């Protein structure tokens, strides 16, 4: 059993006491408006302790959520989150922020549904506005086989109580008037999987909200702290080496997504993961006209409109494995062409930005969560192009896994051992482009 030392109290490196979660409210907004004082920092810098009860590598949504639930649900507060650059600098600050739970396997649907439920209450739980907009999610079918997969998904979803239905072109046109639903296109739209609870969220706010919550519970968030080695003695973890010195710890969680193979290698754990870049782009902002998230697997493209009015475009991963996060002209050309096939009136829109992030792809498009053969070394990886939506449930489940020393039921299908055991959880039909 892991015991916690007094991370929540006592002086920190900056000399001020770690604050209790101070509420953001209409009243504090009003008061600060009157007295003009600065807002307190949402999270703090600390000196590196020489030991922690648990060390989490990676300051993305997964690492921070796990730290938050470890402290909040299990009272394990002497925890460090180590981030080599800045929190949210990985996929968590680069994704297109689509949330949904209309997956294909019962294990997947149940898991992602729990995440959507946690997201629904996250703003209240964290006292931080995460701007979750459940505007509905449409996956278009342009051929019979996708339509068949969508019927299959609908039935699996319904069995798990998840709101999903297949709709025809007329209903699609009602939801998204600017879509070209005519039959004279190259890939006519035959139908769509409609998932009303799906939507988009403010991804940075989720990262910052979890960081603030974890900090208030006594967790140390160390930015600009890179892990360079993991100490393993007699098959168990004893510490990590960092650019700021060594930390002794019996528990290490690898939550580094695109870089996770490199971290697992440090502990001598082989992984079925390949790192691919994924690119996205936004246009200049325009008045709101697109109320739903629209995805087309056949055209390898998806579109949503952000609260600021920008159109957010995404695609499938780059065609070859790489750790490079440079954008490419091929991507821009491809995405522009495909968006225009779907919505011809957008031809005058201008692209504002384009960027890439790293995705840790697994053979079955499902994540890898739980213990490894090295005692005390846990993984929460394999998030591919779809892991942002899983932040809350993965954090909750990994915290339970670490505190109880065994994976909770909800992630029992996602262990690293499933690959050599031949028990894959095939989600390609619901996760390849859908995000």
């Amino acid at each position: 059993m892991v015991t916690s030392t007094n991370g929540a109290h006592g002086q920190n490196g900056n000399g001020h006491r770690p604050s209790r979660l101070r509420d953001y409210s209409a009243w504090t907004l009003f008061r600060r408006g009157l007295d003009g004082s600065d807002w307190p920092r949402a999270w703090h810098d600390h000196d590196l302790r020489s030991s922690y009860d648990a060390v989490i590598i990676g300051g993305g949504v997964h690492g921070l959520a796990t730290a938050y639930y470890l402290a909040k649900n299990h009272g394990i507060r002497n925890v460090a989150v180590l981030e080599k650059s800045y929190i949210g600098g990985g996929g968590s600050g680069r994704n297109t922020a689509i949330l949904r739970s209309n997956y294909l396997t019962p294990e997947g649907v149940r898991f992602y549904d729990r995440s959507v439920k946690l997201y629904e209450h996250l703003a209240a739980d964290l006292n931080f506005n995460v701007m979750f907009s459940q505007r509905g999610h449409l996956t278009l079918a342009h051929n019979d086989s996708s339509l068949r997969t969508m019927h299959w998904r609908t039935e699996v979803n319904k069995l798990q109580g998840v709101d999903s239905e297949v709709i025809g072109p007329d209903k699609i046109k009602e939801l998204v008037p600017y879509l070209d639903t005519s039959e004279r296109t190259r890939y006519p739209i035959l139908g769509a999987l409609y998932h009303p609870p799906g939507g988009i969220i403010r991804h940075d706010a989720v990262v910052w909200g979890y960081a603030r919550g974890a900090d208030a519970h006594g967790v140390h968030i160390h930015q600009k702290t890179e892990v360079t080695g993991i100490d393993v003695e007699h098959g168990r973890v004893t510490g990590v080496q960092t650019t700021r010195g060594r930390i002794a710890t019996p528990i290490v969680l690898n939550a580094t997504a695109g870089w996770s193979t490199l971290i697992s290698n440090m502990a001598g754990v082989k992984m079925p993961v390949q790192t691919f870049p994924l690119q996205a782009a936004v246009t200049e902002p325009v008045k709101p006209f697109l109320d739903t998230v629209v995805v087309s697997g056949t055209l390898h493209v998806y579109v949503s409109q952000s609260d600021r009015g920008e159109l957010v475009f995404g695609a499938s991963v780059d065609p070859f494995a790489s750790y490079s996060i440079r954008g490419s002209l091929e991507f821009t050309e491809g995405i522009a062409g495909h968006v225009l096939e779907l919505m011809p009136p957008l031809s005058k829109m201008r692209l504002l930005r384009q960027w890439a992030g790293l995705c840790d792809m697994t053979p079955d498009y499902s994540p890898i969560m739980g213990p490894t053969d090295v005692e005390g070394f846990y993984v929460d990886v394999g998030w591919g192009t779809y892991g942002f939506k899983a932040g809350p449930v993965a954090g909750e489940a990994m915290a339970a896994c670490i505190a109880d020393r065994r994976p909770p039921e909800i992630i029992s299908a996602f262990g690293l051992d499933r690959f050599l055991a031949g028990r894959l959880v095939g989600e390609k039909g619901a996760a390849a482009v859908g995000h």
Partner: protein
Amino acid sequence: MMLLPCPWCGPRSAGEFRFTGESGPRPDPTTTTTDEWRSYLYLQDNPCGWSREGWYHGAGCRRFFTVERNTLSNEVRATGGPR
């Protein structure tokens, strides 16, 4: 744009090729164990740096070949493979 040195066609745009993944020894299917075979199928080195990998020149000579590529910089060098 990334150029790949096809041993038969010379340097061509990467868009003409299909990436077939890391190359390594394939176990003999008639003698391999299940564990060995699954390790071969699923486990990856996924290096950040120089990697030996396979490509297929689908829009050209339609042959498979191996190159070395730095997965961080995407710099490519020929392997001195088939000619």
